[in-house]
């Protein structure tokens, strides 16, 4: 027996405002996204994260006073300083003795957060760790961009991790990867310290044949290059995680990849040899939630079919950076929701 970090509870929050995709656009059907939740003008990343954490506390009867560490995965925090995690700590009433920090990753972010949480918990640096993701990408995607806009939705998730006594690690076989040489493949060029906001004028790209355009303050994505990255990296990542865990695909209880879009996920499923494994693919009413897509999917699986009986779940995130990460998660220590009795 040993003391290992485990996922105990997951909850989420999606903004009230819904933006439907154009039903006449065949791409909308292909990517499997009918509508997306969009943060209101006055909703910032910390607002969504606080709501997700409040939902977690309410659903599982968790006291904010018990949290001793907050990790917030966010690419667009409320301010360039301070960390949004500090704002979240105060608003949730988490003790001042807690550590709190932001880390900036996109679609790989949840797996990285699990790895960081495992490190903090299994070295005794944290006990009740709140791992948050909050994405407000729609604020940084041009409304005149019919290629990228239909893909992304906003939302936040909250995951509680604590130490548990077990005969094996409940978060295991982590594999991480980074290729900053392709940092420009998914990028918001202006607004950071390279092109600071108060000296960098707003400039629109030349519209494409269909009139799609975006500014230098909006997200740019090199579609073919990102497809190439995904189709090459994720199968190898899957193979590496399985090898590290001494598992085969047949030994998996479920696979939850980052929910990029349905088209890519179906292609990946086949390419990764996962056709016979329970494979989550559903973002019809959310769109791509970036770092929140994996925990949102896990919460959905738990509410529909239960997660607690699943001991070998392959998680894989991949995207902006370019960055990727995968692991095997055992959900045997999941707490019952208060409504579950």
């Amino acid at each position, binding site marked *: 027996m040993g003391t290992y970090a485990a996922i105990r509870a997951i909850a989420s929050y999606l903004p009230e405002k819904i933006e439907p995709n154009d039903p006449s656009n*065949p791409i909308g059907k*292909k*990517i499997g996204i009918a509508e997306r939740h969009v943060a209101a003008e006055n909703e910032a990343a910390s607002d969504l994260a606080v709501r997700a954490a409040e939902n977690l506390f309410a659903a599982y009867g968790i006291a904010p006073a018990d949290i001793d560490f907050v990790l917030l995965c966010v690419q667009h925090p409320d301010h360039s300083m301070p960390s949004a995690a500090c704002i979240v700590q105060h608003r949730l009433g988490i003790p001042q003795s807690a550590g709190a920090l932001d880390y900036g990753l996109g679609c790989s972010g949840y797996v990285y957060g699990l790895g960081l949480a495992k490190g903090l918990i299994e070295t005794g640096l944290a006990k009740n760790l709140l791992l948050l993701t909050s994405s407000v990408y729609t604020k940084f995607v041009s409304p005149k961009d019919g290629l990228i806009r239909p893909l992304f939705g906003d939302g936040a998730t909250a995951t509680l991790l604590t130490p548990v006594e077990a005969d094996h690690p409940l978060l295991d076989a982590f594999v991480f990867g980074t290729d900053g040489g392709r940092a420009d493949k998914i990028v918001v060029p202006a607004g950071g310290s390279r092109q600071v906001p108060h000296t960098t004028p707003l400039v629109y790209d030349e519209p494409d044949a269909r009139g799609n355009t975006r500014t230098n303050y909006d997200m740019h994505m090199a*579609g073919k290059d990102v*497809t*190439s990255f995904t189709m090459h990296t994720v199968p190898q990542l899957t193979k590496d995680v399985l090898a590290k865990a001494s598992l085969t695909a047949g030994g998996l209880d479920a696979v939850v990849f980052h929910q990029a879009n349905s088209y890519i996920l179906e*292609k990946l499923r086949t390419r990764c040899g996962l056709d016979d494994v329970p494979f989550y693919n559903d973002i019809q009413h959310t769109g791509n939630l970036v770092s929140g897509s994996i925990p949102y999917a896990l919460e959905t699986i738990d509410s529909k079919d239960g997660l607690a009986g699943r001991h070998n779940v392959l998680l894989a995130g991949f995207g902006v950076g370019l960055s990727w990460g995968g692991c095997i998660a055992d959900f045997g220590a999941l707490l019952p929701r208060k409504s579950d009795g």
Partner: protein
Amino acid sequence: MKTIMELLQATNSDADFAHSDDFISDGLLDSMDIQMLAVAMEDEYGITLAGTDLMPMNYTSVDAIRDLLRSRGVEGDI
């Protein structure tokens, strides 16, 4: 080496490419399919496709795709 038709069928197995005069206007290939097909062709033929190579007009037929590949130095039966 796989042929263009084999890569097309792998990209969209439901489509009847053999009986289409224009893959784009017949709705057999959309922008996402083109990206996926381009990645498959890069892997298969050892080339890099970028910029105007990804314009739909290059993917209207097997002949159009072959012309694109030939312009990128791909030889042999494709």
